[in-house]
């Protein structure tokens, strides 16, 4: 009789219709015994009136049961389809889910109105067709990277929400997620039956990338899954095209900004390449590209020719004046989709790595000094470009003797890397000091030599449970007489930053052919990683790395001076090795400065900084949670989750002058406005159908879900009638029985 119920669980209330019956039966137990003499007259009267009294009571009972049952049924809200014999009594209402494509591509302005404005306008038209008096319902879902259900009941509520939608987001469209929300709504709607009468309207610009199928990495399988779920619920998705007329609308966008130099440094020239992508069908020549550094350093524009459906690069010479974060902003002439015509990129120009060389065997001669060659590489004499590794001076070395580590005046917070070069007999307090410093992000490099006593080393620096600084336990010295040969590097981790230079096969022999005459064996801790091994029988480790809290520790099992190896005497080996290695060691992992729109921003600040705020691209400010500080740490991490709704430059500022930039970047693929055709659309899934604005239902009535008419009003009226009849009947019985 009914196709289902809106509130099927409340249907159990119809069992309450048995209550009047139960009361009636219980009342039969409550007869007061009474002796009676004139029984013959009672019996005669009983015989005369029995049937009538029974009928009266039965009618009364049935009316009461009916009233209760009808009330429960009305509350359960049954509904019927068109084919039901009760359809004439049903009151059909419309349930619509409107999915509004609010991705960045809908900002395309083909004429006076952008696609998004047309979408919102169309949504208003649909809502205005609804009738709140008929209990029509509308759900508005604003779809972008994350769907948002902004209205879920009355048409007037939806209209007021639509009035607040002024511009699209800067995000891409996750259509599968948006339809997932629709599936949830349809499942709620279909409660009690397998079919939903929810009408689904997708108002979009038909951007191909939103519907494309492809490999497993894209969202298409998830999209088909949601569409299939809707199909099973009897829902079709009417897709309304409110985008540009062209199949491939013309559009240029800034796709990327990237520094080309491998090593960035203050005052070091660096080329920055700006990639411009042409998503249109026609090549564009002479596109003017401008690049601005830190908002006030605007470089002269450079033209670029960009082929159709291709990209062009233009290179700008840039010099970053200082170390730190710098904002590069590239812009092209505005076109019909303005949001991808500008792009920001934050570049972190690292300061010089501050290296503290703890000289375990100081000597006046550079060749004999433990850190002589090392110091020369890190701080070459002026003019020695080879040793310097270029014009920039990426390191600030300083040499101390081991006992100076105990000096409180030595501030390790001003040091990025400490090299213990052939150091023996570190005092315990020095060890503890180093442990604290490494835990907070410092990098410790330990090189060996004849001064290092394995026992003392293992006692102070190595712990079996991994809590010690050393990544390995030292073993015995392994030496080869020079006349008898030497060891070489047999293998190393090619993709490790320390060996990036030697990953190139051309330069690999510079590392692998360097003689190593002596080293110490080492038993590597489970938590450490061997970066290079020697060619002895045991494949002994040469370089071992271990993470220690937020810092790193390296163990070099030979010397850094020529005493045990000829590596220091080979500048073509030592320079790239030390530069890459110590640059890597001195680099602290920092949260990314460039995030996609919607991404999370994070910054480590000193614990004492107060009043941390997020500055939005348009100038607004938002206070940020101070964040958690680990015990003993001097810094804490501040985060801004989900605050990057717009593309542009954000800043995290704190009292004391801290102002760190971040860039929220538009997905360049949003500029690809190529549209999917109607045929291709249906090919994605049969549930999709391209509908014009004038169509309201599927042209195939057999396939469209039948409208759902609710019967609760009629049932409620019937309940009311039953109650009135019950009252009147009870009154009539009472009156007829009270007059003898």
């Amino acid at each position, binding site marked *: 009789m009914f196709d289902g119920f809106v509130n099927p669980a409340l249907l159990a209330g119809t069992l309450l219709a048995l209550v009047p019956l139960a009361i009636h039966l219980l*009342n*039969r137990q*409550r*007869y*007061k*015994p*009474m*002796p*009676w*003499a*004139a*029984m*013959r*007259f*009672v*019996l*005669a*009267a*009983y015989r*005369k*009136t029995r049937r009538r*009294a029974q009928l*009266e*009571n039965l009618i009364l009972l049935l009316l009461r049961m009916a009233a209760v049952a009808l009330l429960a049924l009305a509350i359960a809200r049954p509904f019927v389809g068109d084919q039901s014999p009760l359809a004439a009594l049903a009151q059909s209402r419309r349930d619509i889910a409107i999915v509004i494509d609010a991705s960045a591509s809908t900002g395309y302005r083909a004429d006076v109105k952008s696609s998004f404005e047309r979408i919102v306008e169309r949504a208003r038209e649909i809502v205005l067709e609804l009738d709140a008096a008929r209990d029509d319902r509308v759900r508005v879902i604003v779809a972008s990277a994350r769907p948002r259900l902004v209205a879920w009941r009355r048409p007037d509520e939806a209209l007021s929400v639509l009035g607040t939608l002024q511009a699209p987001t800067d995000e891409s469209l996750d259509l599968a997620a948006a339809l997932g929300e629709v599936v949830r709504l349809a499942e709620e709607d279909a409660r009690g039956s397998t079919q939903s009468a929810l009408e689904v309207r997708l108002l979009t610009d038909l951007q191909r990338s939103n519907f494309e199928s492809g490999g497993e990495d894209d969202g298409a399988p998830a999209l088909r899954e949601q569409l299939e779920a809707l199909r099973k619920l009897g829902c079709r998705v009417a897709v309304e095209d409110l985008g540009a007329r062209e199949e491939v609308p013309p559009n240029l966008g800034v796709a990327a900004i990237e520094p080309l130099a491998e090593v960035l440094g203050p005052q070091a020239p660096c080329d920055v390449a700006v990639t411009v992508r042409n998503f249109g069908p026609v090549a564009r020549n002479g596109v003017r590209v401008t690049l601005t550094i830190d908002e006030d350093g605007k470089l002269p524009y450079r033209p670029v020719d960009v082929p159709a459906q291709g990209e062009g690069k233009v290179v700008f010479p840039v010099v970053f004046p200082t170390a730190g974060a710098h904002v590069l902003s590239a812009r092209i002439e505005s076109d019909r989709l303005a949001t991808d015509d500008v792009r920001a990129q934050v570049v972190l120009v690292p300061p010089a790595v501050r290296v503290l060389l703890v000289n375990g065997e100081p000597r006046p001669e550079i060749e004999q000094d433990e850190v002589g060659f090392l110091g020369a590489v890190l701080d070459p004499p002026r003019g020695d470009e080879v040793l310097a590794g270029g014009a920039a001076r990426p390191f600030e070395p300083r040499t101390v003797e081991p006992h100076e580590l105990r000096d409180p005046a030595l501030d390790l917070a001003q040091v990025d890397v400490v090299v213990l070069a052939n150091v023996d007999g570190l005092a315990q307090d020095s060890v503890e000091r180093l442990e604290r410093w490494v835990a907070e992000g410092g990098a410790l490099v330990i090189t060996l030599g004849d001064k290092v006593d394995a026992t003392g080393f293992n006692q102070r620096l190595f712990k079996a449970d991994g809590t010690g600084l050393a990544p390995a336990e030292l073993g015995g010295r392994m030496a080869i007489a020079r006349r008898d040969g030497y060891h070489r590097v047999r293998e190393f981790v090619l993709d490790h930053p320390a060996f990036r230079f030697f990953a190139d096969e051309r330069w690999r022999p510079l590392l692998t052919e360097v003689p190593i005459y002596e080293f110490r064996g080492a038993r590597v801790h489970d938590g450490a990683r061997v970066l290079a091994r020697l060619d002895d029988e045991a494949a002994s480790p040469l370089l071992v790395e271990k993470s220690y809290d937020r810092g790193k520790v390296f163990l070099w099992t030979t010397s850094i001076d020529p005493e045990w190896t000829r590596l220091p005497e080979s500048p073509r080996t030592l320079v790239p090795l030390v530069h890459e290695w110590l640059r890597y060691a001195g680099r602290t992992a920092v949260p990314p400065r460039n995030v996609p729109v919607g991404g999370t921003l994070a910054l480590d600040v000193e614990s004492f900084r107060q009043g941390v705020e997020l500055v939005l691209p348009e100038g607004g400010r938002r206070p940020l949670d101070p964040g958690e500080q680990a015990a003993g740490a001097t810094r804490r991490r501040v985060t801004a989750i989900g605050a990057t709704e717009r593309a542009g430059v954000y800043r995290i500022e704190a009292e004391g002058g801290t102002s760190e930039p971040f860039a929220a970047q538009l997905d360049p693929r949003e500029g690809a406005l190529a549209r999917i055709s109607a045929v291709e659309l249906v090919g994605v899934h049969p549930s999709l159908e391209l509908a014009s604005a004038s169509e309201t239902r599927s042209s195939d009535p057999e396939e469209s879900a039948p409208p759902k008419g609710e019967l609760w009003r009629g049932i409620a009226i019937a309940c009311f009638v039953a109650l009135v009849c019950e009252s009147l009947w009870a009154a009539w019985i*009472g009156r*007829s*029985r*009270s*007059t*003898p």
Partner: protein
Amino acid sequence: MAQARGDKRLDPAVLDRLEGLELVARTVVEGTLSGHHRSPLRGSSAEFAQHREYVAGDELRRLDWKVFARSDRLVVKEMFEETTLACHLLVDASESMAFGSLEWSKFDYARWCAAALAHLVIGERDTSGLVLFDAKERVKVPPSSGERQKHAIWKALEAAQPSGPTGVGGVLQWFAGRLRKRGIVAIYSDFFDDLPSVVEGLRRLRHEGHEPILFQVLDPLELSFDIARLVRLDGLEGAGMLKVDPKALRQAYVEEITAHNRELARHAAAMGVDYVQLDTSRTLEVALTTYLAHRKARARGGRR
């Protein structure tokens, strides 16, 4: 509750509190005879029959001086012969008479009436007898007069307890053939019996020359059936049990009992038998005044 009219001594609620049937009887009689009622038996209760010539020895008070004044004739009045009236009290002591919605039962009411009547009758030097019955005679006090008789009647009434099935009609029929002396037969019963049987009994009494008076003693609840809640009626005299909604049954029940009583009254009227319905909530006055009317008629030599 009792509806006392006039003399409060006749209020059954008052009578119920009196100790002893003698006191009740005296109270009822005095209450009945005081005020509105004078004993019709005081003075000459004889009725003039004819004149005859005075002969020596006739009582001088019988001379009709008016006739002498007119005609100088000495004549005496002759009256109808005064006979001693016999009043037979038949009291139904079946179980149905034990019913009472008030503090007293129908039987209590009936025996008050009977006791009072006995007191009145014997006080007027008539004879009275008592028969207590259910389906058959149970206790009998043969008719006689005098204080001793009165006390015997009262004693029998006081000792009786209503029990057993009803059989009014059968008892009347049986009784009709056994009464030697004609007289008034006052029958106190609820008459919850087959009417034909009762009517036959009455007919036989009449045939034997008796004057039955039917005193139907009914409880007010039996008349109204005004019971508010659901009840399980346990019939007395083994009449069964029935759960009823009195409100649903009331109208039909009242019709039934009214029809029964009306039929009884009709039959009684057709036979010239007085029928008096005694509501146990009302005063006992009517019980005696009816007898007194009969007695007066009898004294005149006629019948009512």
